[in-house]
C-alpha cells in the first residue's frame, strides 16, 4: 500500500470514504511526518492531541455517513489565523503567549467540514517578508536542495514559508496561507506546491491577524490543483463579520476541472518580460505558452503599462495599512508588555522590543507616508497608481480570459542571501503583487526544475470571482508539466 502521506488530498478523501484507512491512521501518519521533519522548522506549534481528538470525531462521522467535504483530512494552518485556545503568534515576539478566545471564520469553515488541525505553521513576522527569515521563531528550511550544494540551507519563500514547506515535505496534506503581495504564490513556486490566492472578498478575513486589509486574502497550499479547488470551496463564503467578504455564491470548484481549455484566450503581458530575467525562467514561461497552446488555447499579447509601478505602489499602500493595523499592539490587551514609567514609554518599549527589524521598518515607512505633509505626495499618489494598475487589467480582460506569467523571478535562494538589502528582497514579489493591488485571483503551479534541481512555478491570473477558469487552466498546466520530482528533505 502507498504510504498514506503520499496520497493527494482528493485521494485521501476518497480513501477515507471507502474505508481503506481511518482518519486516526491518516492523522498518525502525518503526526509522525511532522516529527521527522522538525529540522525544517515549518511549525511553530504542533497540536497532536487536538489532531487525534478531531480525527476520532471524524471517524465517528465517517462511520455514521455524516462526513464533511474535508472529513478527517490533516491540515496545517499559518500561524496568522486565530485558533481558539491555541497559541497564535504571527511569528512575532509581541504576541507572546496569545491564545485567542475565538476562532477565525476560515478555520471555523474547515472544522465544520471535518478537517483536522495538525499545528500552526511558521511565517515571516506579521506576514512581512518573502523568505520566512523575519520570523521570531527562526527561519524555515526549504525541503528542496540545490543539487550542486545540498547542505546549503535554502529559504522556502514567504511569508507563508512554513505552510509551503510542510505541504512540500509531506508533513501536512494541505495548509492555509495568506497572500498580501505574493505570500502564497511565491513560496508555492519555490517549494513545488500549488498555491492559490482567491479574489479579494472570496474568503472572510475575520480572525486573521491583519497586515494590509485592502490586500490580504486567505488561500490554500496543496500538492495538486484539484486539492486546491476542494480546499477553497470549504474556506470561502460570505461572512457578516467581514463586510468586505463578497455576497456571492461559492461554486463547486472541483467541477470546473474539465481539462478542456479549447478557445480560452491566454494573455501574455509584455511588461512581465523584465530586463535581466533569468533565461531559465523565460524558457519555462515559453514552455507554459506552448503547453496551453497545444491544449487548444489561443495566445494573445497584452499590455499592462503600469505593471512596473506595482511594487513601489505596494510599498506605500501595504506599510501604510500595516502601520494603522499594528497600532493595536500596545502592551495593554494581549501579548508582550515591556514596562515604562509613563503610558507612552510603555508603548514605545513594548513595540521597540516586540517588533522585529522588518516590521519596524514597514511601520515606520507607513507612519512616514501617512504623516502630515506627506499623505498626498505618497499615500494618495500610490492609491491613484493602484487605480491605474487595476484599469490595466480591466482593459486586458477585453482581449483575454486569463494571464500567464512566471510566478517568481528566481528559484529558492540561500537563507543568508538578500538579507542586507530590503529592496532586493522586495523584488521577489514583482510578478505576484499586481494581483493583490487589483484584487484578482491567481494560482501558482509547479512547472519545472532549474539546472540546480530547484522547482520553478508558473502563475495564472484571472478575472474577479472567476476562480473556476483558473482551476480549469491550472489543471491543464499541471497535467502538461507532469511534475513528479520530490524534495530531498521530505518526511
Amino acid at each position, binding site marked *: 500500500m502507498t504510504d498514506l502521506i503520499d496520497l493527494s488530498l482528493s485521494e485521501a478523501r476518497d480513501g477515507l470514504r471507502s474505508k481503506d484507512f481511518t482518519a486516526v491512521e491518516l492523522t498518525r501518519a502525518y503526526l509522525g511526518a511532522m516529527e521527522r521533519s522538525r529540522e525544517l522548522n515549518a511549525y511553530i506549534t504542533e497540536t497532536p492531541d487536538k489532531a487525534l481528538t478531531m480525527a476520532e470525531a471524524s471517524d465517528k462521522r465517517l462511520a455514521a455517513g455524516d462526513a464533511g467535504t474535508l472529513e478527517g483530512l490533516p491540515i496545517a494552518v499559518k500561524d496568522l489565523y486565530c485558533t481558539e485556545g491555541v497559541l497564535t503568534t504571527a511569528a512575532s515576539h509581541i504576541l507572546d*503567549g*496569545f*491564545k*485567542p*478566545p475565538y476562532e477565525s471564520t476560515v478555520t471555523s469553515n474547515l472544522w465544520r467540514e471535518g478537517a483536522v488541525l495538525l499545528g500552526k505553521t511558521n511565517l515571516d513576522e506579521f506576514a512581512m517578508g518573502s523568505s520566512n527569515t523575519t520570523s521570531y521563531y527562526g527561519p524555515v528550511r526549504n525541503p528542496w536542495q540545490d543539487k550542486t550544494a545540498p547542505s546549503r540551507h535554502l529559504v522556502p519563500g514567504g511569508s507563508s514559508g512554513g505552510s509551503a514547506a510542510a505541504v512540500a515535505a509531506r508533513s501536512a496534506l494541505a495548509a492555509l496561507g495568506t497572500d498580501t503581495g505574493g505570500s502564497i504564490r511565491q513560496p508555492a513556486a519555490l517549494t513545488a506546491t500549488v498555491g492559490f490566492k482567491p479574489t479579494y*472578498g472570496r474568503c472572510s478575513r475575520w480572525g486573521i491577524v491583519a497586515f494590509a486589509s*485592502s490586500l490580504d486574502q486567505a488561500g490554500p497550499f496543496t500538492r495538486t490543483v484539484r486539492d486546491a479547488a476542494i480546499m477553497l470551496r470549504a474556506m470561502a463564503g460570505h461572512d457578516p463579520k467581514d*463586510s*468586505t467578504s*463578497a455576497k456571492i455564491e461559492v461554486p463547486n470548484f472541483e467541477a470546473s476541472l474539465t481539462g478542456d481549455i479549447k478557445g480560452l484566450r491566454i494573455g501574455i503581458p509584455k511588461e512581465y518580460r523584465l530586463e535581466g530575467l533569468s533565461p531559465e525562467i523565460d524558457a519555462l514561461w515559453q514552455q507554459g505558452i506552448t503547453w496551453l497552446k497545444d491544449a487548444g488555447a489561443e495566445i494573445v499579447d497584452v499590455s499592462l503599462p*503600469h505593471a512596473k*509601478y506595482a511594487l*513601489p*505602489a505596494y*510599498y*506605500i499602500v501595504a506599510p501604510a495599512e500595516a*502601520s494603522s493595523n499594528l497600532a493595536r499592539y*500596545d*502592551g*495593554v*490587551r*494581549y*501579548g*508582550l*508588555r515591556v*514596562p*515604562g514609567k*509613563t*503610558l*507612552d514609554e*510603555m508603548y*514605545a*518599549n513594548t*513595540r*521597540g*522590543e516586540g*517588533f522585529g527589524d522588518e516590521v*519596524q*521598518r514597514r*511601520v*515606520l*515607512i507607513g*507612519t*512616514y507616508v501617512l*504623516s502630515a505633509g506627506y499623505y498626498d505626495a505618497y499615500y*494618495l*499618489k*500610490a*492609491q*491613484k*497608481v*493602484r*487605480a*491605474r494598475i*487595476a484599469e490595466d487589467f480591466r482593459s486586458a480582460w477585453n482581449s483575454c480570459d486569463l494571464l500567464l506569467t512566471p510566478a517568481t523571478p528566481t528559484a529558492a535562494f540561500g537563507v543568508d542571501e538578500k538579507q542586507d538589502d*530590503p*529592496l532586493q528582497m522586495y523584488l521577489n514579489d514583482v510578478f505576484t503583487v499586481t494581483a*493583490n493591488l*487589483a*484584487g484578482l485571483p491567481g494560482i501558482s503551479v509547479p512547472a519545472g526544475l532549474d539546472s540546480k534541481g530547484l522547482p520553478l512555478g508558473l502563475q495564472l491570473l484571472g478575472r474577479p470571482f472567476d476562480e473556476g477558469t483558473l482551476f480549469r487552466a491550472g489543471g491543464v498546466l499541471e497535467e502538461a508539466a507532469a511534475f513528479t520530482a520530490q524534495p530531498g528533505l521530505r518526511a
Partner: protein
Amino acid sequence: MTIDRQTVAKVAHLARIKVAEDRLDSLAMELDEIVAWVEQLGEVDTDGVRPMASATDMVAAWRDDVITDGGYADRVVANAPDPQGDFYTVPKVVE
C-alpha cells in the same frame, strides 16, 4: 536625502517605537533608499484619477444596529499582561 536621523526619530515617536540612538543612522539610510525608490511613482500621470482605497467596488454594507456579541469580560481580558478583575491596567496617566 529626504530621511535623516531626526526624521526617523520623529516618525519612531509617532509610531511609538523605541529606536536605539545607534540605529537611527542605519535606519535613516534604509528608509531613505526605500522612499527614493517609491518616488518613481511620480512618473505616472494620475490627473483626474480617483484614488483606489479598496480592492473591490463594493459599497459598505448596512446592518441593524443591534448587539450580537459580548457579555464575557473575563474572556476579553484573559490575554492581558496585567489585568485586575475585568479591567486592563496601564501606568498611571493622571497625577
